[in-house]
C-alpha cells in the first residue's frame, strides 16, 4: 500500500466509521473497485484497519472525555458499592453489559470473520443488507411513533417523547451490544445496528447515536490491544500508517459532531438508501469487472 493510498484509506475509514454506512465495507470495497494492487487478505491489512479504528476511538475519547471520566468513576463506585445511585453509574453498567456480547463473539468468531475480509462481493451484499436494516429500523420506529400518537407534532417534539441512554433496560443494552457483533461482517455498520437497536429500545435518535458512540469505544480499543502488535511485527511502514490513523481520527471527530447534530431531528433512511445503492452499484461493477 502506497503512502497516498494509506492516507486515503485513513480518511475514508474515519469519515465512514461513525456514519451508519459500514467503514469496514467501504475499506474492503473501494480498493477493489479502484483496482488497487494491495491484497486485503494480507496479514497486515486487518491490523492496519484496526489502527485506523484506534484513530476513531481516540476521536471519540476526545469528544466524550468528560463523560468517560465520569463513566469510569461511576463504574468503580457502583461496582464497589454494589448498587446504582446515579444515571451515570447506570450508564456505565449498561455499557459494560453492552460490550460483553461483542467481546465474546469477536474473540471466538475471529477466524471466520477474518476469512470474510478478502471478498468484496460479500462486503457489497452485506452493504445492501445493512441498508435494508436501516430502513427496517425506521419503519419500526415510525410504528412506535404512530402508537404514541405523535404524527401531528414536529420532529423535535416527537423525539422528546423518547428516552435517554441511561434509561434503557439492561436486557436492551445486552441486545444492542450483541447487534454490535454483527459489525464484524464487512458491510454491516456498527453504528447503524447499534443506533437501530437503540431506537428499538425506545431511545431518541440523538441518544441512540451517543450510546452507540460510547459503546464503540471499548470494543475498538480492545481490538486494537490485540491486533496492533501484529502490525508492528509485520514489517510495514508504521509511521505512514500512524499518520493515516491521525487523519481517520480527525475525520471521525468531524463526523461525530455532524451526526449528533443531524440526529436531533434526522433519521436513518438516507443512509439506508445510500447503502442499498452503493452495494448494488458495487456488485454490478465487480461482476462486470469495470
Amino acid at each position: 500500500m502506497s503512502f497516498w493510498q494509506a492516507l486515503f484509506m485513513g480518511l475514508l475509514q474515519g469519515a465512514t466509521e461513525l456514519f451508519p454506512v459500514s467503514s469496514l465495507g467501504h475499506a474492503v470495497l473501494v480498493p477493489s473497485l479502484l483496482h488497487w494492487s494491495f491484497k486485503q487478505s494480507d496479514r497486515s491489512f486487518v491490523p492496519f484497519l484496526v489502527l485506523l479504528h484506534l484513530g476513531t476511538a481516540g476521536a471519540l475519547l476526545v469528544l466524550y472525555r468528560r463523560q468517560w471520566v465520569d463513566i469510569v468513576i461511576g463504574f468503580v463506585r457502583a461496582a464497589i458499592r454494589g448498587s446504582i445511585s446515579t444515571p451515570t453509574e447506570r450508564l456505565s453498567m449498561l455499557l459494560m453489559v453492552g460490550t460483553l456480547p461483542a467481546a465474546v463473539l469477536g474473540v471466538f468468531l475471529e477466524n471466520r470473520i477474518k476469512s470474510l475480509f478478502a471478498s468484496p462481493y460479500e462486503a457489497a451484499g452485506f452493504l445492501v443488507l445493512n441498508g435494508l436494516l436501516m430502513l427496517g429500523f425506521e419503519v419500526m420506529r415510525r410504528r412506535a411513533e404512530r402508537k404514541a400518537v405523535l404524527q401531528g407534532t414536529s420532529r423535535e417534539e416527537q423525539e422528546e417523547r423518547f428516552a435517554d441512554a441511561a434509561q434503557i433496560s439492561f436486557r436492551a443494552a445486552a441486545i444492542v451490544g450483541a447487534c454490535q457483533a454483527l459489525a464484524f461482517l464487512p458491510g454491516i455498520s456498527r453504528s447503524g445496528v447499534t443506533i437501530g437497536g437503540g431506537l428499538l429500545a425506545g431511545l431518541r435518535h440523538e441518544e441512540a447515536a451517543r450510546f452507540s458512540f460510547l459503546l464503540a469505544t471499548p470494543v475498538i480499543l480492545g481490538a486494537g490491544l490485540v491486533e496492533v502488535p501484529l502490525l508492528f511485527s509485520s514489517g510495514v511502514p508504521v509511521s505512514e500508517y500512524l499518520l493515516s490513523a491521525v487523519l481517520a481520527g480527525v475525520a471521525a471527530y468531524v463526523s461525530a459532531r455532524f451526526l449528533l447534530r443531524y440526529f436531533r431531528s434526522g433519521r436513518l433512511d438516507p443512509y439506508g438508501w445510500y447503502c442499498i445503492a452503493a452495494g448494488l452499484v458495487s456488485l454490478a461493477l465487480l461482476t462486470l469487472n469495470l
Partner: protein
Amino acid sequence: MKSNSLSLGLAVLGVVFLVIGVLYAFGVLQIFVSDPHSAHHYTHLILFTVLAVAAFVAANFTRERVV
C-alpha cells in the same frame, strides 16, 4: 434480585473465568483459538479477565445487604 446463594454462584463463576483465562494464557486450553500452534492466547486471557470482573460486579450487586 438479591440472594446470597446467587451472589456466591457468580463469585465462583468469576474465579472459574480467571482460571480459564490463565489456562489460555499458558496455552493449556486450545479450544476456539485462531492459531492452535501458538503457545499463548492473550486475547482469551483479556476476555476472560473482563468476564471475571463482570461476574464479580454482578456478585456484589446480588449480595443481600445487612441493614
